[in-house]
């Protein structure tokens, strides 16, 4: 079994008087694709944001590559964010910049190299997401699916070891959903990255997952392979996997 590179231990987080996590424990292994599922608003994205230091947990520890994320200084966080990239839900492209400038943004911040090397890298990553030649377009000229792919290109530009996907397929049409899923898989195979995917799209889950984790009652209620999940007795999990088909009782 591959080594665990990221670990949440006893993490709790609340916003005002709304508690999101009380005791979050989760390990992520090198090279795997882990999907995190759970109902809307249970704080799946919060989990990703805590991992790269965009939010701080109230208590507990988060370790990434052997370092404690919660105690990292600015420089340490900068380095961490060159190893762990995140694709935001709405892609979060900078509206004021062209596609090219967007993709160069992390390259400039991390001192990637010369101008020519950056140009070459932009070409490469746009090729990887099957969108060559759109360097000069503005985000407003792109469709939802294209934005996600440019966002993905921006995330992989600095060659991260881990990519966090926050609902990569939400709001997309079936063709784009399949395309994004295919990209996640191919990046996995070609670059050997570790992927953490937050989603509530069950098709995505079963297409790309090595292991899945269910956020349930402010902690991780289940972690295991999709096959284990199907056989699991937790009612909420089986209902979730069936995608709400079958009988859904009120107390869920």
């Amino acid at each position: 079994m591959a080594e665990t590179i990221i670990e949440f231990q006893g993490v709790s987080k609340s916003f005002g008087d709304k508690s999101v996590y009380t005791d979050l424990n989760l390990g992520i292994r090198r090279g795997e694709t882990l999907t995190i599922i759970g109902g809307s608003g249970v704080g799946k994205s919060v989990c990703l944001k805590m991992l790269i230091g965009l939010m701080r947990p109230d208590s507990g520890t988060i370790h990434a590559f052997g370092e404690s994320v919660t105690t990292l200084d600015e420089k340490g966080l900068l380095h961490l964010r060159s190893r762990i990239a995140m694709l935001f839900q709405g892609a979060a492209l900078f509206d004021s910049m062209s596609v090219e400038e967007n993709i160069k943004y992390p390259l400039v911040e991390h001192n990637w190299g010369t101008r020519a090397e950056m140009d070459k890298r932009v070409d490469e990553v746009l090729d990887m997401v099957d969108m060559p030649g759109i360097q000069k377009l503005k985000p407003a000229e792109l469709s939802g699916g294209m934005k996600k792919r440019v966002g993905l290109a921006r995330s992989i530009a600095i060659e991260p070891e881990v990519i966090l996907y926050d609902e990569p397929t939400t709001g997309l049409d079936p063709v784009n959903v399949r395309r994004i899923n295919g990209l996640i898989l191919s990046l996995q195979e070609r670059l050997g990255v570790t992927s953490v995917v937050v989603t509530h799209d069950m098709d995505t889950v079963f297409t790309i997952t090595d292991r899945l984790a269910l956020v349930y009652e402010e902690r991780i209620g289940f972690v295991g392979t999709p096959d284990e999940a199907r056989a699991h007795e937790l009612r909420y999990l089986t209902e979730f996997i069936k995608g709400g088909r079958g009988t859904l009782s009120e107390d869920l």
Partner: protein
Amino acid sequence: MPSGLLQLFTAIGEIIYLTRASIRELFKGPFEWRLIITQLDLGGIDSWSITVLAAGFTGMVLSLQFAIGLEPFGASMYTGKLVSLGIVRELGPVLTALLVGGRVGSGYTAEIGSMNVTEQVDAIRALGADPVRKLVMPRVFAMTLALPLLTIMADIIGCLGGLCITVLEVGVTVRFVYEQMVETLEIVDLLHGLSKSVFFGYLIGMIGCWNGLRTYGGTEGVGIATTRTVVFISVAILVSDFALTRIFLAIYG
């Protein structure tokens, strides 16, 4: 403590923190020329028309009022004196700040607020940069620099407007009013007004950015935050104007 007071202190604390971080980013590492010049252009240069319009008409209406108001005392001759003092010491800085504040401050909140609710501010951090450096510092710096310059322009245009109307209403020569104004105005009057406008510029940039960064709740939230910024900036300018005037009167006399 009542919750309103608590909110006020929280806001002041956050603004002090953001100010400190902005000053640190201004002097740290390579100077962000490009970002600052963009903001000078958008916030400063693009505000010239509204400044000219406001200052010109204020000078004109002020001299109209003085010319008629001073008539019963036979003092209409002094209209130019009063108008130039009123513009340079008070109305130039304050009116410019209020108008530019409404225009630019709300723009800052709308832009940064939209970026915030679409996770672009998070993305800046996730991509290895600092939102204070990329968003807040250039705007606050640009506004602090641009507002005094706009105020100088407002002073000149305001006095010109006053001059025209004084000549027409009181029936004195252009030369007379001009010399009267030059004689009346001292360098401390200009300093007095400009010192205030430096602070107003900082307030506009800072309140606009601060309110943008704490925007939440989607597009509706952006609308609410933008409206609030205009109110906050106006109140902050009016209240601090009184306090600063008191202080500068003690300093400059």
